[in-house]
């Protein structure tokens, strides 16, 4: 009989079942694999939506009002001088005027203080149409060189102002440093000169960490083409605050940079005389130069945008909150009503 064959199938029920339990492929239970972890999926009920909008409105509107009023209290005095500071007879060819090192570039401007300005009064220069963000300009600097003396030769990234014609490294190298702004201003009021404090106009971190105290200018502005100011070779870069301010490039073509601070109050209607050395060439590309005197408040300089933006958003939210409240009162509807689902709505439409 088949007893021999039978022995080859010699497994029995009991061992079968225990083996099955051992080999069970049943996935182990865990909240993660079963996707049962607690989750938060807030339902946008009318209450939540209305109170959120109302809250935003209530918070934003006061902030907006406060910043607007702060901005209103800032006194700002702007004077564009690039065109007027060119002598009348040279105005046809401004480029020739500015490029000629022999011409007298001194220019005197008189400004009336519109309102009382309390110290400190920030002095800025503003350039228009100057693309400090241009790719080839932004890249043309060597942070390593600025930081330490030992990296003086690291000028590869500074093209085309890396080395002099003789191959000597320029410190500080690059287009940015090369094009350093070199107009100067001196102020006087009531024939008494006003001191402009040029200390601490740069970021402390820049002075401490990015510009070395042992790095001195070398071979700077010695090439055929002068881009801007020269630097005193006996002062380390970390003390050259004008340079440090300039090297922090602006993101937009219209920008202000801090020139210094006047640390006396100016009275309203007081006349200030500014003697400008108009050296910087913005005429080659049609840029403007402006002198700006401004007080500051807790939101910085004169800037209405922030306040307006806060007011707009806050107002909108408040309006929406009101609208939803009205809608909720006059045309309420139950949450999760399936008859509003598109297919149900279509069916209803079909039967009507």
């Amino acid at each position: 009989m088949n007893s021999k064959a039978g022995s080859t199938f010699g497994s029995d029920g009991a061992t079968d079942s225990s083996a099955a339990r051992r080999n069970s492929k049943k996935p182990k239970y865990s909240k993660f694999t079963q996707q049962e972890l607690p989750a938060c999926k807030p339902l946008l009920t009318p209450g939540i939506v209305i109170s959120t909008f109302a809250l935003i409105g209530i918070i934003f509107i006061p902030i907006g009002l406060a910043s607007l009023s702060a901005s209103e209290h800032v006194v700002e005095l702007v004077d564009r001088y690039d065109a007027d500071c060119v002598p009348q007879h040279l105005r046809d060819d401004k480029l020739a005027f500015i490029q000629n090192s022999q011409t007298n570039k001194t220019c005197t401007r008189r400004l009336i203080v519109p309102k009382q300005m309390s110290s400190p009064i920030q002095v800025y220069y503003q350039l228009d149409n100057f693309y400090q963000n241009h790719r080839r300009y932004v890249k043309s600097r060597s942070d390593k060189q600025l930081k330490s003396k030992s990296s003086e030769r690291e000028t590869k990234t500074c093209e085309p102002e890396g080395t002099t014609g003789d191959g000597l490294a320029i410190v500080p190298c690059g287009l940015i440093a090369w094009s350093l702004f070199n107009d100067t201003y001196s102020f006087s009021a009531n024939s008494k000169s006003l001191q402009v404090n040029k200390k601490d106009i740069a970021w402390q971190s820049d002075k401490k960490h990015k510009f070395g105290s042992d790095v001195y200018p070398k071979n700077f502005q010695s090439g055929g083409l002068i881009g801007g100011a020269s630097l005193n070779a006996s002062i380390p870069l970390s003390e050259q605050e004008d340079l440090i301010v300039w090297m922090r490039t602006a993101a937009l073509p219209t920008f202000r940079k801090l020139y210094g601070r006047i640390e006396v109050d100016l009275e309203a209607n007081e006349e200030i005389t500014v003697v400008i050395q108009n050296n910087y060439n913005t005429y080659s590309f049609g840029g403007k130069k402006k002198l700006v005197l401004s007080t500051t408040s807790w939101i910085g300089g004169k800037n209405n945008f922030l306040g307006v933006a806060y007011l707009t958003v806050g107002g909108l939210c408040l309006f929406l909150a009101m609208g939803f409240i009205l809608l909720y009162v006059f045309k309420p509807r139950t949450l999760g009503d399936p008859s509003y689902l598109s297919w149900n709505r279509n069916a209803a439409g079909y039967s009507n």
Partner: protein
Amino acid sequence: MAANLGLFSDPSPPPPISGHVPSSRRRPSHDRISFAPDSSHSASSPSALGVPARHGSRAESERLAASQRDLPDEDARLVVVGDAPGTAEAAARLGLGVGPAGNAVRTGKYSVLSFLPRNLFEQFRRVAYVYFLVIAVLNQLPQLAVFGRGASLLPLAFVLFVTALKDAYEDFRRHRSDRLENNRSSLVLGPSPLPRFLPKPWKRIRVGDVVKLLADDPAPADMVLLSTSDPTGVAYVRTTNLDGESNLKSRYAKQETLARTPEDGFAGVIRCERPNRNIYGFHANLELRGGRRVSLGPSNIVLRGCELKNTAWAVGVVVYAGKDTKVMLNSSGAPSKRSRLETRMNRETLFLSVFLLAMCLIVCTLNGIWLVVHQNELELMQFFRKRDYSGGDEKNYNYYGIAMTVFIIFLMAVIVFQIMIPISLYISMELVRLGQAYFMTRDTNLYDESSNLRFQCRALNINEDLGQIKYIFSDKTGTLTENKMEFQCATVGGVDYSGGKAPSPIETGFYSIVVGDQFWRPKMLVKTDPELAKLLRNGGETEEGKCAREFFLALAACNTIVPLILETPDPKQKLIDYQGESPDEQALVYAAAAYGFVLVERTSGYIVIDVLGDRQRFDVLGLHEFDSDRKRMSVIIGCPDKTVKLYVKGADNSMFGVIDKSINLDIIRATETHLHNYSSLGLRTLVVGTRKLSRTEFEEWQSAYEKASTALLGRAGLLRTVATDIERNLHILGATGIEDKLQKGVPEAIESLRQAGIKVWVLTGDKQETAISIGYSCKLLTREMTQIIINSYSREACRKSLEDAMAMCNKLTELSPMAQSSTTAAGSGRIRLALIIDGNSLVYILETDLQEELFGIASKCDVVLCCRVAPLQKAGIVALVKHRTDDMTLAIGDGANDVSMIQMADVGIGISGQEGRQAVMASDFSMGQFRFLVPLLLVHGHWNYQRMGYMILYNFYKNAAFVLVLFWYMQLVHEDK
């Protein structure tokens, strides 16, 4: 053992029936699935994938249609038996170029040397990587370096490195398993001077080698059986490694080769088809030394990986080795389908790249304009400084003329805006899908306790399509139902016995039979009807009693089941396990055993049945296998009382045609009524009939049968004719009702899917009544539904019935708005329609202009039931819907006959069930139960789609936000002038 050694004790006619029976007797069984369609056909049509014969469910006609014919030389492979070098020479002579492959398998992709170039090549076949590479290369140009050179290469290098590492590890593992596999050894016949079976590692085995397998040995290659330990040439194999089916399958050695042993110089040439991946088809012939040709079919071949069971040894000749074996040819990955979301995303990506190009063009145009306007100022502008004065001679600094500068600006803009094209999103999506696949496979709700199977993601890229399914095409058997047949009731001699009750443990004693001091009992218990049992035991000589005995004898004898004796922990008790390819037959044999007709032993020549405690031996004189044309099988039995009887069982419609209506008309009537009842209960029915054969009749049949089974041409057809000739004027015994048990949770699952607005279509090979009854029992059909039934036998009739159906649909939908307006919830008041259509009608509808109308009707119906459909028709129906709508289709099935449908649908799901792994192999996802569709589609599918959708949208938004800020900055700065 009470066994009659001879049927006809007088010396005159037929051959003695003892342990050895002439081969021709059993030849028909060889032809059961032989004559496979030629390889080109089988490769193109999945329908040719064979399926185990199953009553009333599978159309096998096409397999039988092909007649035996010679293989043309150019399509053939020659194998010289026992002569591997000779085989290689023959291949060379035929101009086949390289000879047949060696048996060494190589699943590893790379060698040490080829790893780097090949792996890089494989990786860079993904567009995303090429894009990354281009961007990284652009970054290497000094003029363009935006992000720094190293930084741009780093991510790509990292991804490449990790992937390469993973590939290398996988390949290492493959190499290791290859080595293990290649170094296994089998017994191979040594060279001719001293032919002896010697162990030889698998990798050295070549085509033409003669290999001997011992019990439990796996076959090292695809081999044609030459002889086995069984004198009749039967060998049993288990093909679990190949198709997952755990039942034993019988393979046969040809009678012509059986007698000779290779040791005493066996010679012959096998001409077989070229290697192909059809594991159920094999077509070859064997030319013996005498010039005699023997045809070989799939039942003569043992495939690599099959284990020899229940047979002491088998000898075969290797015909396909190594990578040519069917199992290796079938080990390809899942078909690649593309998710609809991804297709959509690709379109958006294309749009985005146009957008990107436009942005870059705007940027470089504006730059060009600016350069032209300021042409003369460029040199003096502090922030531009065209000239470079350092280093002696004057040159331009990064300036190459306006055109070139504009071009460089363009490339630069491409780099700056590169993330506008979300190539990285493809990788993110892959990662997300991996996570989703992890969640799906780890979901305990998708784990099937009974088969110990987890959900399996075979295709990783269509997860989110699961949430978009609109149509489900489901197989019935094995998918909706368990394919575990359970004998429920029987009608014997016109009396219905359906009062079965569950077997109680006390009663178990009744089932066991005594062998020496041991008790043997069937492995599965079946509930019995006490009255029928009583009738069998007590009603000895009454007409009803005889009829019932005959009936159960027929059930026990008329089948192809092989009983196996299993050990139990109790040494006194053994289990009889009935192994066979048809679950119906298994159920019937278990039922017969439960009523006391225990099939104990089957060899090819005789069967031993324990008839109510009395062990009797019946000689099997002939067996006509089931085929789909006749829809019945029959067996001719020589009984112990020296009578010859024909037992036939088959589908009712085919059986009533061959039953002698002149006798016992009332029994036939009663049986018909009972059958109708069973059918409406959802039971599968089989009718059993018998006829006593007279001596002359038997002799006539025997000579015809022998002639047919030795015929070389059209053997199957001849055998069918012989069968039809003998199967007539039957005396009806009764009929059986077998319950095809529904899988757990099917009705609830279908209800949920329906509520979700998914249309469920059932495509089954079963007959219409069964399909409808299953439809009712799984709540697919309800009593309120209006059924439209289309059964037509010609094109015109089809057209007509379709038109009628259409008119009816329209009328009903006109009515329904009125019904609907009263209710808010959609559909509840509507008249619901169900379309029931059969395979015959589909023949006329599919592939013709009637398709359009069918689709029109089907889309109006809530339920569509297609019965008696062939595998290819299933695919045709899926295609019908897929090509006419934008809706996603899903096909679910478990059998080889569902493969075509699974591959055709947008999403194919394989049920890993009773019917092997063919469907799973072809599917995108596989799972254990139909009801898992509900959590899969409604939970995972929903989440997958929603999450993926959010991720893609968020990615697009994020990229746009990032890029457009840069873009507008560029514009603003320019406009500021």
